[in-house]
């Protein structure tokens, strides 16, 4: 008798265990899963994005402005960008599309890695808007094999933001700072240091954004269009590295180790300029006491043939996943980010996001004279520079190659020759990304 009771308990425990294991699956689909129809007949779309003040605010604004045929209810789930990258990678590589969103924001420099790693995971949306309405440089990263997968969102068009007071003290007016080369920038940095004692810019040694900015002024990248690794004979990269070293060697840079220190460097008035993507402007404006002390000039170019005073730094685009509800999601994007000029005006005034939709730049909001920047039409200027940004193919391995370069860069700064450094980096990258 006693044995039977034991047996019964064991069976009972087993059942509980199995029930607990199996139970998870049936329950999780009810919340957060993409694409259902809600009670009032609207199609539900789930979107993943980061930054509530910027990307998510833009999405919500788009949802308010949407006026297409299909009724849509948008649910935005906020995640840090790193988490989105992780969740997409684990989710997509597992082969099931369960739990994936309909809409996702992906940084341009990562886009190719996703598009090529997970064929068929993304839905081509070229039919829902006209890609030619968007800035040229945004199209290469967002398309693959002739199909348009991404709808270009914000621009990373760069500007050379500088402190007018410091630069004046060093003897420079705005006209002296327009259409510079990076070599001239370094000379000016030396003057600024000598006259005012301030470093010209702040840099995080782990973040090589400044090299990418310099390189893209000539339309080159770490890889060529067919994916060949292009480091050893990359003349623009060589020049960029030389400038970088000269800035470092002459103590013209304030070194920081994370983002908040980077922001603090210019908010505290320590550094004289910020050459970066235009999205840095709100952070500069955050320090109200410096109102009127800033201006922005076009980004310096490398002193080479074909280089222009325009470059890109960051920026991302919207992608639709190839799951149920993809047509509704694509229609939503096409109707808002893809064609609505008025929406772009409120995007600018309410969120401060500069899109890459060219027809929008003729609107009123772009003419705004910004008091913080001494009455300069900052947004209009940036939108003009945006159209000149040379198009580059970011390829698949930007971040992988950059880690190799940043390790080699340390040795270069410590005296290794530039040729050796790049040859070593080339060999490493070729071994790693064949």
């Amino acid at each position, binding site marked *: 008798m006693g044995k039977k009771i034991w047996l019964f308990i064991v069976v009972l425990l087993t059942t509980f265990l199995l029930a607990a294991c199996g139970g998870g699956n049936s329950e999780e689909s009810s919340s957060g899963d993409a694409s259902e129809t809600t009670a009032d007949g609207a199609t539900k779309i789930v979107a993943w994005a980061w930054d509530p003040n910027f990307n998510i605010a833009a999405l919500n604004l788009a949802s308010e402005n949407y006026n297409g045929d299909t009724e849509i209810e948008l649910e935005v789930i906020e995640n840090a960008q790193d988490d989105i990258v992780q969740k997409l990678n684990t989710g997509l590589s597992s082969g099931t599309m369960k739990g994936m969103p309909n809409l996702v924001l992906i940084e341009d420099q990562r886009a190719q890695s996703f598009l090529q790693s997970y064929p068929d*995971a993304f839905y081509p949306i070229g039919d829902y808007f006209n890609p030619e309405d968007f800035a040229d440089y945004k199209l290469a990263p967002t398309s693959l094999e002739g199909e348009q997968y991404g709808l270009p969102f914000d621009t990373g068009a760069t500007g050379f933001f500088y402190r007018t007071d410091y630069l004046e003290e060093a003897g420079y007016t705005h006209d002296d700072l327009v259409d510079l080369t990076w070599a001239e920038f370094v000379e000016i940095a030396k003057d600024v240091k000598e006259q005012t004692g301030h470093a010209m810019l702040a840099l995080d040694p782990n973040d090589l954004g400044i090299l990418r900015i310099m390189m893209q002024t000539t339309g080159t990248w770490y890889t060529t269009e067919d994916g060949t690794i292009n480091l050893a004979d990359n003349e623009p990269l060589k020049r960029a590295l030389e400038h970088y070293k000269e800035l470092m060697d002459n103590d013209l840079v304030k070194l920081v180790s994370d983002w908040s220190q980077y922001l603090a460097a210019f908010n505290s008035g320590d550094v004289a300029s910020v050459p970066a993507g235009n999205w840095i402007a709100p952070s500069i404006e955050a320090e109200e006491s410096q109102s009127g002390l800033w201006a922005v000039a076009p980004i310096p170019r490398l002193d080479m043939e074909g280089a222009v005073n325009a470059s890109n730094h960051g920026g991302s685009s919207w992608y639709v996943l190839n799951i149920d509800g993809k047509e509704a999601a694509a229609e939503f994007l096409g109707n808002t980010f893809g064609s609505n000029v008025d929406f772009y005006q409120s995007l600018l005034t309410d969120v401060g996001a500069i899109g890459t939709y060219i027809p929008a730049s003729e609107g009123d909001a772009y003419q705004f004279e910004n008091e913080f920047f001494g009455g300069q039409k900052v947004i209009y200027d940036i939108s003009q520079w945006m159209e000149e940004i040379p198009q580059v193919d970011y390829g698949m391995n930007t971040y992988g190659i950059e880690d190799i370069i940043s390790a080699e860069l340390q040795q270069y700064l410590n005296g290794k020759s530039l040729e050796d450094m790049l040859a070593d980096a080339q060999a490493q990258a070729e071994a790693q990304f064949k």
Partner: protein
Amino acid sequence: MSQTARSAGNSNQQRTFMTRLKKNYIGWIFILLSVLGIGLFYFYPMVQAFLLSLRSGMGANLEFVGFDNYVRLFSDPTFITSLTNTFIYLLVQVPVMILLALFFSVLLNDPKLKFRGFFRTAIFLPAVTSLVAYAVIFKYLFGNDGLVNEFLLGMNLISTPLNWLSDPVLAKITIIIAITWRWTGYNMIFYLSALQNVDKSMYEAARIDGASSIQQFFFITIPLLKPIILFTSIVSTIGTLQLFDEVMNITNGGPGNATMSISMYIYNLSFEYTPDFGYAATVSYVIVVLVVILSFLQFRVAGDRD
């Protein structure tokens, strides 16, 4: 004839086996549950990870490449750097931490010490803080305008702020200081509890024989704590090989790859670069192999009692 005999013997054996099974079946069922659980959640993923390590490719396009990934390890400079870094952490940090923990535990074991409970808690407290939270705080402490630099500047020990996080050597030192702070108290608790079991009469006898306290430490305390020292050094070795949170949050592997650990490289291979889960699994297996080898070595060196 012989055939029938054999089959009879067989069925006899079977019968005893069956009766034994029947006798113990409840025990078997209990064991079965945990065996199934361990098999399903430990061994099955391990086998799958090994199979994954034989494949390579971007994201979902994995192809079978045999042992190519393992060959690739030897010509992968980033892997070699991260391996070297991990060993530097291991060789510097584990001994320093073990010695410090021993030192603290002996001090705190002194029955004449006042506020013992307070000091014990204070030294153990870091071990209960969240890895990410303390790593972020260390990042700010060692920042260019951080408290450490302010302090050193204020004491006139240095004239310009040290680049704790952006100098290859100082960044490693920062990481080592951080993990030592976090784990010393944890190890100290093991030694303290072991010291409680040491017979006091031994020290008494030693004192009567005229042994100094240093001699007592080396000839009584250390030999008696040997099994615990072995245990803590193995646990710390495994922990250091899996080092991730601190590096990720304090230096993000930088400057360059100067503080990159193996685990962080695995993370980068899977999520930061274009994902190659096959190769990432291969690198994970390196950690498994290293843990086995190092634990074996430590057992060999310190394990034999005579």
